[in-house]
């Protein structure tokens, strides 16, 4: 009799324990830390250094979100995720935001239950080969083996591109990018493919980086951006506007060095940005100085790009499409007003 009662009680508990409705910003504030899904193996975007400190463009976006919420860019827990597990981690609530060089596609926007908040890096897929093979174009790779990471748009684009050009290829897929690049280095395949920014980053891991060349073809559009779960509009808006704040700051020439002087500026756009005018921060659910926190603790988009993947980093990638719209690129942020 006792056992039956306890089983019934358990059944009732199971039925009642539904998942709480989405209030991510409130949960993050109460918890005191932001759980951020990151790469863990990609230099320039998300990787811990020798001391265990995380660095990278995606990492800095997460730090910007934490800075806006907590005024402290270190209140973050980074969860390293492989391409296979990244969406399940976000769907299940293990991370609050996924900033892991993830391409924005329609199927990911719809059937996975998550929404992309913007594009922090406009990228495209490319190939890397050994210089000794004397290959100058991806179209010459007929019959080649290509190492690729599993669970990425890279896998799909590879098959499409080679089909479209009537070329045969053998793709060898690996669970993580580390294994894929090791196999490429060991000679298991002739070429390695991933987003072009990733190629430069992974080349640094090879035994002789100068023996490898990146081919000129960019075979797909890969807009990389942060994503959050669907059903929480407030959190979606917060994450979206953190990136836009960084872009607006670069347009207004506000950097981490001069943000304090900008607090006394008379330029109306700058006044709205730093919070002297209007209540834009409070409307988002943050504080008045939300944008100042971001720029002071992390930097504007240009600074973040430079120190992680641009001229101030070992990767030295040109800004290209990622320049501001006013300078010839396509990074464009709506105004704060």
């Amino acid at each position, binding site marked *: 009799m006792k056992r039956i009662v306890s089983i019934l009680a358990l059944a009732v508990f199971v039925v009642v324990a539904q998942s709480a409705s989405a209030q991510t910003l409130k949960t993050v504030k109460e918890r005191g830390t932001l759980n951020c899904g990151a790469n863990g193996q990609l230099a320039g975007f998300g990787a811990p250094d020798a001391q265990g400190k995380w660095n990278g463009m995606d990492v800095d976006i997460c730090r910007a979100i934490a800075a806006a919420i907590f005024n402290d860019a270190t209140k973050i827990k980074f969860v390293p995720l492989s391409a296979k597990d990244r969406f399940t981690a976000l*769907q299940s609530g293990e991370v609050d935001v996924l900033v892991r060089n993830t391409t924005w596609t329609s199927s990911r926007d719809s*059937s996975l239950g998550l929404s992309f908040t913007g594009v922090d890096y406009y990228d495209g897929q490319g190939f890397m080969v050994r210089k000794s093979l004397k290959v100058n174009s991806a179209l010459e790779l007929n019959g080649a083996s290509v190492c690729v990471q599993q669970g990425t748009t890279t896998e*799909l684009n590879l098959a499409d591109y080679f089909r479209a050009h009537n070329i045969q290829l053998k793709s060898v897929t690996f*669970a993580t990018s580390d294994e894929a690049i090791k196999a490429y280095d060991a000679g298991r395949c002739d070429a390695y493919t991933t987003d072009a920014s990733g190629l430069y980053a992974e080349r640094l891991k090879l035994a002789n980086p100068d023996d490898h060349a990146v081919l000129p073809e960019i075979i797909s559009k890969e807009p990389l951006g942060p994503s959050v*779960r669907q059903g929480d509009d407030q959190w979606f808006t917060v994450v979206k506007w953190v990136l836009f704040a960084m872009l607006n700051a670069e347009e207004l020439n506000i950097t981490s060095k001069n943000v304090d002087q900008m607090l006394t500026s008379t330029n109306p756009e700058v006044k709205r940005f730093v919070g002297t005018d209007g209540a834009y921060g409070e409307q988002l659910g943050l504080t008045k100085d939300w944008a100042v926190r971001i720029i002071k603790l992390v930097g504007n988009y240009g600074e973040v790009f430079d120190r992680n993947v641009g001229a101030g980093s070992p990767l030295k990638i040109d800004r290209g499409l990622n320049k501001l719209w006013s300078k010839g690129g396509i990074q464009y942020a709506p105004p704060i007003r």
Partner: protein
Amino acid sequence: MSLGIPAGTAPARVAFYNDPKVRSVAYQLALCVVIGFVVYSAADNAIVNLRRAHIASGFGFWNNTAGFDISQTLIEYSSQGSTYGRAFWVGLLNTLLVAALGIIFATILGFTIGIGRLSRNWLVSRACTGYVETIRNIPLLLQLLFWYNAVLKALPETRDSFTLPLHIFLNNRGLILPKPVGQGGEGLLWLLILAGIIATVIVHVWAKRRQERTGERAPVFLIGAGLVIVPALVYVLLTGFPYNFDLPQRGRFNLTGGVEVAPEFAALLLGLSLYTAAFIGEVVRAGILAVSRGQAEAAYALGLRPGVTLRLIVLPQAMRVIIPPLTSQYLNLTKNSSLAVAIGYPDLVQVFTGTVLNQTGQAVEVVAITMAVYLTISLVTSLAMNVYNSRMALVER
């Protein structure tokens, strides 16, 4: 001696809710209802939450185009024309292939190790002991990674491939064999060979019965070989060999043509077989030690040599003890093949629970299907082994 119950008394009447039989039925019904309710509400909860989170559900993804390539396939598969369902079958066949070959090699090696460990030759028994103790105590994943890297490092680059006779090449992309391309008559050839094999089995059964009746042995092996080879040979001589070979040739990057056996497959097979063989060796040793010594001594007293004693007297009795744990080892091998994910061999878990799950986002359906598949494979294997076991059982009086 008589009990104090007068004859002809009916059993005492109790209320129906105190009757033990009624009570037990009632409790079992109540438990069924509770379990059914829990399962239903858990499923309902999952569906409602998936819908609320806007995650796609249902099995519609099965017929969507896959879009990705698989490096090793036993059946036709193309990234543009094949569906996720087809990718599932490719992964499943790869798993079954590795599991079947792994079971065969592990059994052969395992029996050798187990018997070797009981050998009176000091070197052989110590070597087998060392093998078992080393391999058993290192995690399988590490062993797979070791074999994968060892296999890859030992093999040369494509341009320096080892060239073996019969146009077989060996390099770090794999073993490349000439591919037989059927010209049309090969169906009949295989049919003749199959008929020969069935005939051999029948001859074997007949010869065994004859031996039990009259004591005379028939040369089953020779007869069987004749039954299989001779009709096939006659057919080939009359109609010509029905296969043309697609020979591998050096392309710019890899060898084109031919059939390729990837190093991932070799490494997985090697790692799984060696690992499971260590466990099977111990199971076999336990089985042999379980047979009472009197059997072997009686056999020696009859003048039988140790090898013959082992094969005809000890092992058949040991099989009764060996088969149940052996079944477990086979199931372990089948499930361990899912570690192929770590070295890039496209088995069921890598293709289906890895890539398909990631592309469709439908974790619940995909994992449930994978679990059901492994459960089915395991149940079928253990069913087959249990049938074999019951035929081996001691027939009690």
